[in-house]
């Protein structure tokens, strides 16, 4: 194998750098994508609460259908339908990213008319709008500390099991996966919160896990009598060619999980599914290319 497909090409470096640079630039300029609860301004969003004074007959059902009908008629899009019910369902909370104050009185009248039309004359509807104060992500530094300690522990473990090249490849893959995840989050504009910390941890964990198994394979194969004449990068290429099916299967299952979560069209499950996909893709890419790249670089070109 004279021309190494994976290690000698600049594919990994170019793709990684491109994603990281574009992603970080987008995060730097626009911040992370946000839902109404987690934006980048002083105002997190707006909550419209629509209530009935008592839960008679189909009052709550009329409240819900007429409110949503009103929003649809006015072209007002609440955040993906993440409606919360308060006070045993008597109050519905709709979240918006824009100020819809000017529609609130009209909404109250509209819902009131619909209640009357449904013979619920004794039920009174009311609507009000609240602004939610924006806050930054909390607990970031604890996550960084946890990841830092994990990196040291994983490095020591991998150093014992897989020697220096394997240990470096494992932690490098984990770090690149986390970086790629953050960058892809910036590029795709998938809302960062409330799962960004889980996504970072998951991308790093999966990448380290995939990578440590792959570098073990590099080590075993490099000692194989068939491969003694091959350079480290050639051994890595040979292993990666064999491991390809496993990685493809892994990435496919990650994608499927994301689809399964997002398929219900619940906004937060779509965010969770999207982040699951990004974390899985980052981990697979970083482990597949990154572990070979570092392992071969540390091992040197010739055995």
């Amino acid at each position, binding site marked *: 194998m004279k021309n190494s497909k994976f290690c000698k090409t600049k594919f990994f470096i170019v793709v990684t750098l491109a994603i990281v640079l574009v992603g970080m630039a987008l995060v730097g300029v626009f911040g992370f994508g946000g839902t109404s*609860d987690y934006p980048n301004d002083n105002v997190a969003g707006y*909550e419209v609460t629509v209530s009935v004074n008592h839960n008679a007959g189909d009052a709550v059902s009329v409240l819900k259908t007429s409110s949503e009908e009103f929003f649809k008629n006015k072209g007002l899009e609440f955040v993906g*339908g*993440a*409606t*919360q*019910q*308060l006070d045993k*369902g008597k109050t519905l909370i709709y979240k918006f990213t824009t100020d819809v*104050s000017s529609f609130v009185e009209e909404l109250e009248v509209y819902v009131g008319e619909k209640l009357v039309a449904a013979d619920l004359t004794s039920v009174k509807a009311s609507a009000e709008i*609240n*602004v*939610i*104060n924006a*806050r930054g992500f*909390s*607990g970031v530094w*604890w*996550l960084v500390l*946890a*990841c830092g*300690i*994990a990196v040291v522990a*994983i490095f020591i*473990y*991998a150093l014992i*099991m*897989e020697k220096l090249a394997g240990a470096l490849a*494992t932690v490098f893959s984990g770090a690149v996966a986390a970086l790629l995840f953050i960058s892809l989050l910036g590029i795709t504009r998938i809302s960062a919160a409330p*799962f960004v910390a*889980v996504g970072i*941890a*998951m991308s790093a*964990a999966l990448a*380290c*896990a*995939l990578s*440590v*198994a792959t570098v*073990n*394979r590099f080590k075993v194969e490099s000692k194989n009598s068939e491969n003694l004449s091959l350079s480290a990068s050639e051994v890595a290429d040979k292993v990666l060619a*064999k491991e390809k*099916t*496993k990685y493809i*299967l*892994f990435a*496919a*299952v990650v994608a*499927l*999980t994301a689809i*399964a*979560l997002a*398929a*219900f069209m*619940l906004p*937060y*499950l779509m965010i*969770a599914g999207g982040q*699951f996909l990004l974390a*899985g893709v980052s981990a697979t890419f970083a482990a597949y290319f990154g572990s070979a790249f570092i392992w071969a670089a540390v091992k040197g070109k010739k055995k």
Partner: protein
Amino acid sequence: MSRGKSTTLLTIIGVVLAVLIALTFATFPVGEVSEYTSALGAIELDYDLEGGKAYTLKLSEENEEEVKDVNQVLDTLEYRLTALGYSAYSVKAVKNTDPAVLDYDIRIEVKETETVDSDIEVVAAFGEVAFYGGTSANPTEQILEGEKVVESANYLGAVTSGTTTAYQMTIKFTDDAYAYIINAIEAAEVDGGSYYLEVKLGDQVLLSGSSAITASSFYNRLLYITSQNEAGAKQMALQVTSGGLAYQYEIDSVEDISSPYGEGVATKCAIAIGVLFLVLMVAIIVIYKGFGWISALSTLAFMLLEIWMLIAVPGIVLSLGGVVGIAAALLLAVYSMIITADRIKEEYSHSEKTVKAAINRGFQQSLVPVISVNVVVGIIAIALLAFTSGTVKCFAITLGIGAVISLISALLFTRMFTSLIMPLVKNKEKFLNMKKVEA
């Protein structure tokens, strides 16, 4: 192993698995009055999956200071909620869009528990800890103002003396504060007097200044304080540690609230994991044939164990982060099994080994990578568990438990099912989808 023995053992394991599946997913009547609820239904869900209670806090009329930074209040409230063991809560400041309305209300949305009402009272309690010292009883001169005085405060538990039970907490002073108090005590004693220290939290007296204190009242910078009620002692420890809530809020209303993620989110998550599990099973059976069936059985055992661990391990409250952790752990479990399957296949195809020898060698060869995969994930889970909170912590818990069970499944269950199934197979090579590759 003989075919008869294999058949018997597989039948027993099959029955055990069937019973476990029934107990995990089915709900059925027991006798005439009671009903067995599935294990899945017994998993404790957090606020984000199940909803809970919403508490609205309004600024009290007695509040004197203008709220300059509402985020500081939210930080303190979140700190206190976390300290009391709540994870997937929501704390936000809301106010009417009318520009005339200046003050934010605070809405705390949290899982409903037996103690949630009293916990929220503790969380929202007002008052900063203040220290008063002097050479006469019940001192009124405030000391250590504007300094960091308390390093930590902890609730210790009940102390029973005779028929009386009191509840203890400790305040650990910083080096500087401790030195200040000890110097004051020594100075008073040099003058032939005594030193009195009173500790107050808002208007509440934590330590009465009616009795003199000496240097021996402290142990390793710790001052012991007792309260007559448990909630009071817990509250003191929590408030002293988290600092005072700078503004006075009152609980204005308490209402039930549904999950912020939408209706039936827990069921939908369960369906998503179920779909993932089934498709994974089909995929590995199609790709790996016989070993795919063996892996599928091991993965089934993995899933059942993971679900039962969520009930068996005390204190686990499942949030959406935990669901993601289960999905990630399931992926790792299958990945661990695939490592073994690939090694067996390669051992067989590239050597003169028999199927049995290839299986044995394949398991040996995959031991290190399988252990490594799960150890690495376990390390990350432990680190996250130790340093993070909320939904990340729940992710770490389910991922960590998953890593342990994945290891057991890949090393033990897969080996066991292989040993039991292989004697029953006539054409082992075809069953495992293996072929010799000519050199």
